[in-house]
């Protein structure tokens, strides 16, 4: 059963094989491809994992410092990434984990969160300026560089720490947990925030509230439903509700950041 996972796992992110994989999804120690940090310099292109799996218990720390041992987490093509982005916008399907099961990638989370940092700061500032201009046309443009700082710390902190916390929590509770897949899922859940930041440029007040609420709910349900389908059979619904609330909290935090920007702009 482990061999199955290796022979098919090199097919890049294809959802076709996900049906056969479902039975092996919850097996015990995972291959070196699916654990983090990488235990040795396993390059995905080589005829690989049989000897790597044998070395799994002895953690060879040299793999942590070489770039080639991390390429296994970036083994995606453009169409795969686009496919995952589009499916992350769908809040009710709950099958994201089966899509990424064979080949979770870290490319998506890293660049989606980076994009979100810049989009939040710059477009958020622009949106506040346009809103203020509607009400009070004498207001002038002001930009505070420290918003980038705040946005970066909060977004990166959220994407890194929340899946890590869930990983440790689920390991403690005895359910299976996989850190890479959690990072992947939480990272892709931020896609919808990027799109709504563009929509929020519309300066109509009530419309902005509706957009923000819809975004928060969609993203939170994406996270919660996928988490539920991952932890199937376990009675950990508290954690699912907590995930939902955390995502809502992120939305509220973004909205609060906008209020702070607004106050900053109105300063004499």
């Amino acid at each position, binding site marked *: 059963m482990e061999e199955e996972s290796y022979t098919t796992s090199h097919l890049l992110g294809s959802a076709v094989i996900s049906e056969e994989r479902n039975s092996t999804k919850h097996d015990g120690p995972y291959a070196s491809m699916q654990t983090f940090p990488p235990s040795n310099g396993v390059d995905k292109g080589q005829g690989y994992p049989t000897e790597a799996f044998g070395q799994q218990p002895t953690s060879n720390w040299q793999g942590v410092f070489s*770039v080639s041992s991390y390429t296994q987490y970036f083994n*995606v093509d*453009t169409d795969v990434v686009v496919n995952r982005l589009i499916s992350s916008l769908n809040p009710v399907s709950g099958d994201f984990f089966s899509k990424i099961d064979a080949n979770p990638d870290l490319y998506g989370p890293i*660049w989606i969160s980076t994009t979100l940092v810049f989009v939040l700061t710059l477009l958020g500032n622009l949106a506040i300026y346009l809103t203020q201009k509607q009400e009070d046309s004498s207001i002038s443009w002001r*930009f505070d560089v*420290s918003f980038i700082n705040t946005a970066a710390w909060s977004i990166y902190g959220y994407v890194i720490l929340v899946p890590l916390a869930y990983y440790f929590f689920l390991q403690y509770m005895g359910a299976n947990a996989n850190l890479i897949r959690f990072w992947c899922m939480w990272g892709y859940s931020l896609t919808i925030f990027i799109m709504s930041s563009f929509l929020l440029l519309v300066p109509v007040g009530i419309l902005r509230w509706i957009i923000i609420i819809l975004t928060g709910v969609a993203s939170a349900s994406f996270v919660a439903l996928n988490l539920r389908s991952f932890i199937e059979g376990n009675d950990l619904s508290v954690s699912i509700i907590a995930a939902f609330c955390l995502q809502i909290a992120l939305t509220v935090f973004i909205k609060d950041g906008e209020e702070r920007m607004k106050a900053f702009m109105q300063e004499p």
Partner: protein
Amino acid sequence: MSHSHNDTIPLHPSSQSDIDEIENLINASVNQSVPSARPPSPPRASIPVSVSSAPAAPSPFISSHLPPPLPLPKSSASPPPPPPPPHPSSAFGSPPNTLTEPVWDTVKRDLSRIVSNLKLVVFPNPFREDPGKALRDWDLWGPFFFIVFLGLTLSWSASVKKSEVFAVAFALLAAGAVILTLNVLLLGGHIIFFQSLSLLGYCLFPLDVGALICMLKDNVIVKVVVVCVTLAWSSWAAYPFMSSAVNPRRKALALYPVFLMYVSVGFLIIAID
């Protein structure tokens, strides 16, 4: 004649032209008379190298201003040192002793290299599509100047928090170049780390010009237009190098972060008031 070497690694298509170039230079310098192959430096008070031994040496590698290791009259007894890299400014015959040349020579050489690299990368020329030739003589002085200049310009344009603006711009560009290079390497691409850093730094030149114009002219419409034009120019400059470094199916994955970085810097230029 290079095919007589037993190459186990397949050559990059541009490497063959490099090897041919080096062979031609070797042959050309062997035919030269040895005394004229010395670089024109002022005579130094040092251990005298006997001139009489020089014509006896058919190999160009022996004659130099460095003292000979042992008083070997025969050139064939001493193994020739490895050939120095093809240096365009000095004769190929002897290694240039750059430690004792005037400072102005060093600065002039570095400046001319920056200018030539800039012309290769940012302006249209027939070598742009060949990553082996495009930035073969890479250096990091040019990128350093451009990044610092952009940070300084943004800092001057800002009315408050000038030092923080400089810090953000510098960190964004420097860390961004490193992260972009790592991104290509992680996607399984083939680039040389420092060559890529160098290229991403040189591609900032249009944004430098744009930032300078935006600093001098404070109109929003002008800023937006200027930034859009220079942004397109920067992206056009970086495109062939980045796209040829990775698998064609991952080209967009490698190019998107470059685009993201330049757009963010462009936004910063417009947004700094």
